[in-house]
């Protein structure tokens, strides 16, 4: 009888290697979340949607870059790119937030996380950063493609490239703002339910239902109401912050209420994060 191919039970081996602690666990959860956002390490079905959205944004960016290189008067800035793709971002967030958060609630995996060194705050931070990065990449990479297009076709040499860089930086900052605000709202809604479809519906509903409020407020016969109409919806809120802080022209007249947009955006992000934390503190104790 041949002895080859026999697997010997070498018994249980103790682990003597390093244990890296919380920071490493947060980092691993962040990378895991970011990969999951684009369907990596998940089923083929989970890859379709994120890559479809990413494909569309990149395609739009390539077209814009091509048009820009041919028609110098075509003024479609980096900030306009975000504003025009807002609905695509909303759908991306509506699919992504439940995939990152609701899935864990549904499968009941949270007790396994929280019986490890990970704390509620660590979990929230890792998931939040993963999603902010994912949304930012979705906008930032196409913006970079637009930048490359512009930089390689510029006729002003190095100073032309430098001008583009100065345009790109606020564009990236604006994308980050989109990512921060949409992520905090999306995660908060998704953390309330284990059903991914409900969470996605809830997120879209928030953006859908606030848009008409802006429409109504902006036609009221009061200039203060008109100026502050944008506060009512996350999308116009971001546009407002953009036009106040970055001076972009978005057809929304803020009057002298610009700072209020900034304050509301900051408070909204902070409040959503605090509520998320409170929610997970409760979940972690169960």
């Amino acid at each position, binding site marked *: 009888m041949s002895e080859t191919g026999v697997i010997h039970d070498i*018994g*249980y*081996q*103790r*682990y003597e*290697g*390093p*244990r*890296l*602690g*919380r920071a*490493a*666990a947060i980092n*691993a*959860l962040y990378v*895991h979340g970011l990969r999951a956002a684009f369907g990596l*390490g*998940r*089923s083929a079905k*989970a890859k379709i949607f994120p890559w479809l959205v990413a494909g569309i944004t990149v395609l739009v960016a390539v077209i814009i870059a091509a048009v820009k290189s041919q028609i110098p008067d075509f003024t479609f800035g980096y900030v306009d790119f975000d504003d025009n793709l807002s609905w695509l971002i909303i759908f991306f967030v509506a699919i992504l937030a439940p995939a990152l958060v609701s*899935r*864990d609630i549904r*499968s*009941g*995996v949270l*007790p*396994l*996380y*929280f*019986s*490890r*060194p*990970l704390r509620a705050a660590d979990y929230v931070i890792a998931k939040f950063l993963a999603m902010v990065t994912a949304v930012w990449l979705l906008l930032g990479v196409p913006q970079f493609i637009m930048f490359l297009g512009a930089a390689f076709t510029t006729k002003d040499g190095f100073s032309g490239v430098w001008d583009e860089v100065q345009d790109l930086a606020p564009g990236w900052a604006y994308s980050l703002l989109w990512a921060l605000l949409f992520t905090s709202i999306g995660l908060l809604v998704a953390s309330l339910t284990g059903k991914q479809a409900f969470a996605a519906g809830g997120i879209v509903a928030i953006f859908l239902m606030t848009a008409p409020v802006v429409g109504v407020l902006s036609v009221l016969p009061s200039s203060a109401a008109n100026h502050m109409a944008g506060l009512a919806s996350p999308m116009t809120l971001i546009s407002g912050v953009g036009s106040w802080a970055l001076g972009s022209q978005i057809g929304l007249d803020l009057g002298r209420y610009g700072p209020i947009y900034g304050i509301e955006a900051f408070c909204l992000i902070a409040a959503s994060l605090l509520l998320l934390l409170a929610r997970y503190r409760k979940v*972690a*104790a169960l």
Partner: protein
Amino acid sequence: MNIIATQALTKTYGGGVTALSDLTVAVEPGVIGLVGANGAGKSTFIKIMLGLIAPSGGSVRVFDLDPVTETDKVRARVGYMPENDCLPPDVSAAEFVTHLARMSGLPRTAARERASEALRHVGLYEERYRQIGGYSTGMKQRVKLAQALVHDPDLLLLDEPTNGLDPAGRDAMLALIHRIGTEFGISVVVCSHLLGEVERICDSLIAIQGGRLLRADRISSMTAASDVLAVEVTERTDELATRLGELGLPVTREGRMLLVPMESDLAYDQILRAVTDLELNLHRLDQRRHRVAELFTAKETVDV
């Protein structure tokens, strides 16, 4: 050395619900059964040991560490298997356990190695690359056990590990737990509401009821003193009972049998001699172990 020591441990939830009250136990390494009815406070006890909730009163030490202030150190040495379903259906067991190993702070390569080791130890081989959603209940329970084992803890806390398993699955799971406790050198606390199940594999038992400690002791000391000999003869049982009584053995009747407490090996000889003296046909003479359950019920009635 005690692995778990509590002193007057009390936990009262908001709303005045007392989950644990005045629980004082000292647990030695080994396989420990934590038994009690549903709602007796087993899960609360486990959560306190993991530092998930803080006790309202008293103290608890796990490996002489305080779970409240030294949470990370405790959790590095403790593995937890929850009672409920806790597995995502759309990933493979290998990926899932690797991910949780990384959550325990293991580096990437070590996490992958330990995950396949842990899955092998619980008896999952090639199946581990399949998605968990297609697993049987028995296989899912094994994955849950593997994730508790993956970071090489010194203590496993298993909450109802045999839940939902068929008799064969139960036996396999209990055998596995026993093997972990004896061969792997890992102490195991097995939570269960089925006493008969845990007494087969445990070295010691902690029984709680309504948040209070009913009894905590080694199984051997619970059963040793209570062994009885069951004697059955074909006829003239009364005569034998009287005879044994004369010999100083406290006999009780149970149907056609006589029960004699076995204080020493002498009892055997005395019974045999009595039977032969009376020229009776001995039908049976065997040592009967008290089931631990009987002890608890006896103790319970005394308490009340």
